[in-house]
């Protein structure tokens, strides 16, 4: 509570001391003071109504009103806490805070730092929602999670024009691939398996040299083939065995280039060499299997 009141005190101080954005004692200045006071009392709607006349087509002289509007909306978002929302108070808060900062062309407004912090906070909440979305992932939600990530990225890039979010976005895809794997383990649904592959492929489209995505993709595809074979039992007929042999072979062949790519990215990594040895064994390639077995032995004794 103490920190909350300090934030409000800062906002009041910043609003009132802004020298050239609204004349002290002007109607706008008074409206801003009233809006802050109403916001402090939790009367956000009323506070925003005070600012409304200055938000219709704001110019530089209304930048502070935009900032306070964004601040009020941010506070209301915090209070009402609607995670996962792409519209509503959070999106509006981001919009007004950005508008305020854009209007502050000379970058000298006393509230600038506070507005940037508020934006940073809101961007962070989008990212928190991405993490929550992945943790409680359900198939089909990937587009929504990516939209939340893009909202986070948009704010982060606004605050730091040099930001490269490729690595972060790659991690989002990798984490969704992991989530899909957990679903696939529970359901055995082929669509969930393809979800794993698709998410890792999207991660690799962004970061082709990502070792874990490459290796994990290889392992997931290979394991799928093994699972098909392990699902057979003494009651599986010969035609069924031969058909499963074909489909598992196709998966082993699909996994092989990813194992090879993992070996290119990080040569002589024992886990990858073991994978290459095993996949060649599964494909009945005795020479290659032996070659990788020798390489693995060397790698392990280094």
């Amino acid at each position: 509570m103490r920190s909350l009141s300090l934030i409000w005190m800062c906002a009041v101080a910043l609003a009132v001391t802004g020298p050239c954005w609204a004349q002290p004692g002007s109607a706008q200045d008074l409206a801003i003071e009233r809006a802050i006071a109403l916001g402090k009392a939790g009367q956000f709607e009323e506070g925003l109504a005070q600012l409304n006349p200055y938000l219709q087509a704001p110019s530089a002289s209304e930048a502070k009103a935009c900032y306070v509007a964004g601040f009020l909306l941010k506070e209301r978002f915090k209070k009402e806490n609607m995670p996962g929302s792409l519209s509503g108070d959070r999106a509006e808060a981001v919009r007004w805070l950005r508008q305020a900062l854009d209007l502050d062309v000379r970058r000298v407004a006393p509230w600038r730092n506070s507005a940037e912090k508020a934006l940073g906070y809101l961007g962070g909440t989008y990212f928190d929602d991405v993490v929550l979305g992945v943790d409680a992932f359900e198939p089909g939600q990937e587009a929504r999670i990516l939209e939340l990530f893009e909202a986070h990225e948009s704010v982060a890039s606004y605050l730091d024009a040099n930001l490269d979010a490729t690595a972060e976005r790659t991690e989002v895809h990798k984490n969704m691939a992991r989530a899909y794997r957990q679903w696939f383990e529970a359901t055995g649904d082929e669509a969930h398996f393809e979800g794993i592959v698709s998410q890792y492929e999207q991660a690799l489209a962004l970061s082709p040299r990502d070792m874990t995505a490459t290796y994990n993709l290889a392992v997931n595809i290979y394991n799928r083939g093994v699972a098909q074979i392990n699902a057979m039992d003494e009651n599986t007929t010969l035609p069924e065995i031969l058909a499963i042999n074909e489909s598992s072979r196709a998966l082993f062949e699909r996994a092989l280039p990813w194992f090879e790519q993992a070996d290119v990215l990080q040569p002589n990594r024992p886990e990858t060499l073991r994978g290459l040895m095993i996949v060649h064994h599964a494909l009945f390639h005795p020479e290659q299997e032996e070659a990788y077995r020798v390489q693995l032995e060397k790698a392990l004794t280094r």
Partner: protein
Amino acid sequence: MAVVPFSVTKSGVPAVQRGIQRALLWVGLPMVVLAAWAFQGGVQDPKLDTTDTQLVLKSLMLGQFVKANQWPASEGAGTFDVAVHNKPALVEALAPKFAGSAIGATPLRVLSLDKADEADAPRLLYTEATGPELDEVLRAVKGDATLVVTAFQPTLMEGVTINFFISNDGLKYEINPEEAEKRGILLGNIIMSCAASR
């Protein structure tokens, strides 16, 4: 007008310094959270399944070779013996699935052989031996009602009824029905229809 006092706070840290600390928390904490979360995406997931798929496939196919045939009536044998020559790992894959089941009224037994003559006329004998060692194995069951299965031989040798071979990276088998007939075994229709040729 409310003013934030620029003075020493309760904790003894000046407000400016406290502000810096808070700013570092704002920046640092999400980064720690991101790093922890991203690390999950960086882990090996899942573990590589190291099941020997060749063994599983061979064991299942051998089991079906046993189940899908018409076998001559046994002469007083108490068990239906499936012998595996020099391949204990295959015995371990085969036995849990098929040992204890019955062919007709005869219980099936899976035997692991170091030498081919260790078993007395098994009903099915599997070997991956080559050259003189294979000749020795075939001599040991010559004239017996034994279905001999080999693996990866360039051609079907005399005395061999079924041979595994690799085609398009997959396991296939070829058959010699005449050899089966010579030994008094009638190959099942499914075995015949699923056989491949090179």
